[in-house]
């Protein structure tokens, strides 16, 4: 008999399973459930982008690309970073990755050593903490609350910093809360980091889905460029989740370190996905990103409907100004999020993800509005019914 417990890496075994997984299994059993649990756009990738990938395959572009990624694509990314966020990177300081997910992994692997602490916002996307732990690092949660609109403040970051602190993960617009941070809100945190060797790993995958003002990258603040790894990708802005295409921008020394890991593990991002991404940016510059703007307008309308709906039924819901999630508070129901979401699914067949999947809080549920207006209206009606039931 093989004792697999002895074989499996302890570091991996210690990472708790994803809370999303449990809920996924439950929701998958339900027929005709309405899902507000999906973390990806409901739009299909625009046709011109899909077509570019098809042509690229037809022309026989089926080989490895440079480890960095196709140079034309990186040139466009450089132009895009400058145009959208005022960030200056040379194509050599940009690497195309297999989704922003790989980029997060590379960033952490490049800097985290066993015992290093990484400040991780909470609630947050499910993968940061496991990725820190895979490297033997220690994730230290920065607890964010709805009183502070789920933003960082110096008050909640400063006490967590010590000589072992290696990095801070910045994740705005945020999944699951929908919170954003403006330039002036980021500034005090940036000032705090400037006197340290702490690296900001900034996951800006939802940057295009900002509904008030323009997205501010922490790298654009004074003295931050040299200590920030910016991660972005095509999944959310261009509805390209399945293509697995992201990128990372960083000062040369950091980028080269990540490149070393990437070239030995992934080699390069899929060439056809890079062709698609090239078209996404090329056509974007041609029509001033009209498709992105159209998607953002559509999300924004749904956002208002869902937030208004929750408030109308008596659930307090802070104003999410980014991503495509609303994060209503369930405290007024007297139920924990886990129990509420499970009951809601069983009784009304609406799938929302309890906040326990994204951290320790059991008070909220994540409701994705990346679904049709009809679905949102029907889901709201059912949630209201459920509130009357309990």
């Amino acid at each position, binding site marked *: 008999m093989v004792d697999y417990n002895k074989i499996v890496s302890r570091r991996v075994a210690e990472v708790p399973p994803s809370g999303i997984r449990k809920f996924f299994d439950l929701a998958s059993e339900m027929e005709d459930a309405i899902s507000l649990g999906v973390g990806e756009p409901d739009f299909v990738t625009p046709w011109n982008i899909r077509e570019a990938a098809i042509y690229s395959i037809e022309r026989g572009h089926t080989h490895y690309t440079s480890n960095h990624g196709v140079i034309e694509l990186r040139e466009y990314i450089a132009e895009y970073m400058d145009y959208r966020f005022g960030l200056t990177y040379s194509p050599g300081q940009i690497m195309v990755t297999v989704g922003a997910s790989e980029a997060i992994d590379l960033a952490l692997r490049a800097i985290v050593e066993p015992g290093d602490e990484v400040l991780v916002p909470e609630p947050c996307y499910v993968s940061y903490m496991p990725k820190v732990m895979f490297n033997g690092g220690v994730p230290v949660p920065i607890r964010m609350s709805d009183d502070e609109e789920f933003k960082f403040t110096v008050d909640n970051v400063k006490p967590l910093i010590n000589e072992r602190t290696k990095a801070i993960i910045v994740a705005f617009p945020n999944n699951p809360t929908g919170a954003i941070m403006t330039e002036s809100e980021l500034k005090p945190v940036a000032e705090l980091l400037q006197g340290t060797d702490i690296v900001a790993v900034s996951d800006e995958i939802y940057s295009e889905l900002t509904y008030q003002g323009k997205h501010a990258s922490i790298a654009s603040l004074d003295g931050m460029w040299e200590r920030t790894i910016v991660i972005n990708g095509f999944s959310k802005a261009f509805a390209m989740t399945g293509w697995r295409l992201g990128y990372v921008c960083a000062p040369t020394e950091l980028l080269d370190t990540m490149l070393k890991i990437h070239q030995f593990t992934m080699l390069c991002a899929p060439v056809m996905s890079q062709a698609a991404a090239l078209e996404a940016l090329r056509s974007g510059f041609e029509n001033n990103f009209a498709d992105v703007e159209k998607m953002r307008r559509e999300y924004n309308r749904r956002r208002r409907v869902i937030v208004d709906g929750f408030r109308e039924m008596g659930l307090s819901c802070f104003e999410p100004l980014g991503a495509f999630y609303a994060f209503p508070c369930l405290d007024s129901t007297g139920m924990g999020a886990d129990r509420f979401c499970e009951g809601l699914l069983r009784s009304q067949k609406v799938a929302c993800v309890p906040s326990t999947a994204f951290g320790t809080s059991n008070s909220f549920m994540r409701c994705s509005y990346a679904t049709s207006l009809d679905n949102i*209206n029907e889901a709201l009606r059912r949630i209201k019914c459920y509130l009357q039931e309990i």
Partner: protein
Amino acid sequence: MTKELSKEILEILRQDCRVDAEQIAVMINADPAEVAEEIKRLERDRVIVKYNAVVNMEKFDKDMVQALIEVRVTPQREQGFDALAKRIYRFAEVRSVYLVSGSYDLMVLVEGLDMRQVALFVAEKLSVIDGVLSTATSFVLRKYKEDGVIILDDEKDDRLVVTA
């Protein structure tokens, strides 16, 4: 109401005309009474002409046909194409009439209970009008996309029900 908001109202209604003023007001962050008033104004000015359903008749009645007819005409003194267009669009069989550039003048969309009815309409009503020089009829065999909507939409939502 600003032109920008007005445009948003039209965008929403063109997508789904059942969305009521109250919901539109939430969607564009405006006052419901003002939205209702703006919609009335758009109707009054005939910017919004009518609220129709996009119907796939092929699925309901196999015999029903539509034909696109290219019509060449002689424009008339003082009235240009308008008078002839009017003579044509008044027929109940005619669903759309467009004045177009190119090798013919009017594009006429005709609907009939069956092919014979449409053919007879062209032979007996349309081509005999004074000023009509020629017609070329193309029957619609299948509709793929109508008014921005893909008719036989096989692009189902295949996303996993819950993802991070």
